[in-house]
């Protein structure tokens, strides 16, 4: 697999040389292969959102290098076109909606790509479907009158329509109801099925993403305190407890069983596998109770 993101010794300072100078990121090294899903975790002010903007070329490194899709983001001429390859869904994206109907809103980025109107139309309809909306009944509505959850899905459709090679979502679940959160996970899952598309999910809730992610990065106050694959993280109980990262319930059960001396496979990825594992344990323990 080819490397699609390569971050080397990256540091970023906000407002250098002023009273408000602030070191946002310190010596970050991350590399990600095409098709992988990276979960990026960290508390408030840990530098997650700054990292997202660096990937999209909105800002460029103070020192170090960020290479995305083979493009070095410190080169201005190349950086300005990076939005075509890296789709960035900001926090609360529903707040940036400005067109008077859903169709134009989703088509905004596509028209900036100078696509033909028929291509724009097919992509808008496709993107709306992908976020679980029915295009024919939506396109003429005014976004203002829709609920927050639907508006967010429209904003995300606006990015998905661009068909970016890398999709970065900053806190996509924040402020959504349980149904909205499930829909959001479905959108992410659907994307993951396509093995060429890379996704980065920024969140402060590990539980949501753990089952989906290939790799996890944890930031604290601008430092990368962990970067690696999911099973590796699960072996770092110290990191999990330090950041109060809550595991999915089935993994908590598996760990608790292991702690009590009942050998349980903790490399399970979903509730179904957990059920099978429990049945196996119960049947193997038969007669001991």
């Amino acid at each position, binding site marked *: 697999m080819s490397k699609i993101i390569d971050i080397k010794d990256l540091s970023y300072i906000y407002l250098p040389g002023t*009273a408000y100078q602030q070191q946002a990121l310190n010596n970050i090294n991350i590399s990600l292969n095409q098709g992988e899903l990276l979960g990026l975790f960290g508390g408030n002010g840990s530098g997650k959102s700054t990292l997202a903007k660096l990937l999209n070329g909105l800002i460029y490194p103070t020192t170090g290098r960020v290479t995305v899709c083979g493009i070095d983001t410190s080169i201005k001429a190349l950086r300005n076109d990076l*939005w*075509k390859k890296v789709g960035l869904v*900001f926090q609360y994206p529903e707040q940036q*909606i*400005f067109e008077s109907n859903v169709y134009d809103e989703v088509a*905004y980025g596509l028209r*900036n790509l100078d696509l033909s109107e028929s291509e724009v139309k097919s992509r808008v309809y496709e993107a709306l479907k992908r976020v679980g909306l029915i295009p024919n009944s939506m396109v003429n509505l005014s976004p*203002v009158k829709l609920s927050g959850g639907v508006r967010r899905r429209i904003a995300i459709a606006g*990015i998905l329509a661009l068909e970016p090679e890398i999709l970065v979502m900053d806190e996509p679940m924040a402020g959504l109801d349980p149904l909205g959160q499930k829909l959001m996970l479905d959108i992410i899952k659907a994307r993951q099925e396509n093995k060429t598309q890379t996704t980065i999910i920024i969140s402060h809730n590990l539980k949501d993403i753990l089952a989906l992610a290939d790799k996890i990065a944890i930031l604290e106050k601008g430092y990368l305190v962990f970067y690696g694959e999911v099973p590796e993280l699960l072996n770092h109980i110290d990191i999990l407890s330090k950041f109060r990262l809550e595991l999915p319930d089935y993994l908590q059960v598996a760990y608790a069983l292991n702690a009590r001396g009942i050998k349980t496979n903790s490399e399970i990825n979903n509730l179904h596998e957990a059920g099978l594992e429990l049945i196996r344990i119960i049947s193997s323990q038969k007669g001991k109770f």
Partner: protein
Amino acid sequence: MNDIKLGQYVHGNSLIHSLDPRTKIICCTFIVIGILSSHNFWYLLAFLGLILVAIKYSGTPLSSIWRSMRGIRYLLLITFLFQAVLTQGEAVFQVGALSVTREGVVIGLINLLRLVILFLGSILLLMTTTPMKLSAGLEFLLLPLNKIKIPVQYFTTIISIAFRFIPTLVEESLSIKDAQRSRGARFDSPKILSNLKSYLAILIPLLASSMLRAEDLAEAMDSRCYGGNPNQYRMRTLKYDRVDIYLIIFMAIVLLAGLLI
């Protein structure tokens, strides 16, 4: 504008920071009267020196003030050019049909200095005074107008809310700008129309969120019993020191000197 927001309060411990806001407002008023009534170039230059000393003394980084000055460079240039060209008098040199006059250059320089002093004075006031102190000071000074049925407290509440939300709005507009840029909006396009459309994509969401915020703020104020009365508590926290009085006397002398020259 990835810089300190223009006129944003910068925390500090200098003498200028600790002055009573009323002193600073009165001094600024003196500065305005002084520089607008004097035509003496040297007096204005001395005034500029005085302000620069105050800025240096306040610990505000000169570099960031210099950078914010760049924001008004065209205004300054246009002011100077118009005065230099449009004033009647002895021609210094001629460019086509336009002649630059000696009197024009002098008046141009004077107006240029005035603008710079006004700009620096107000920046210094805003950067060293918290919005709350500023509005308490304003409210106290304008309170006599209440006697002629002018609701000063509403006015100062509006001003303090406006000051409070300028940095928030700037921050929000920057983040919306980033969001639209990542959908391909261009703000440096050679086509003016497409630039305008891009700015519209910032203005509309910004306006919508400001409306929502205003509504929320109104409800929050209501729920904490805001009744539009003068803020006695805030005004009571103001305290005059000996330094304040000295400074006002000093500035009054400077002002008088300007009027007499």
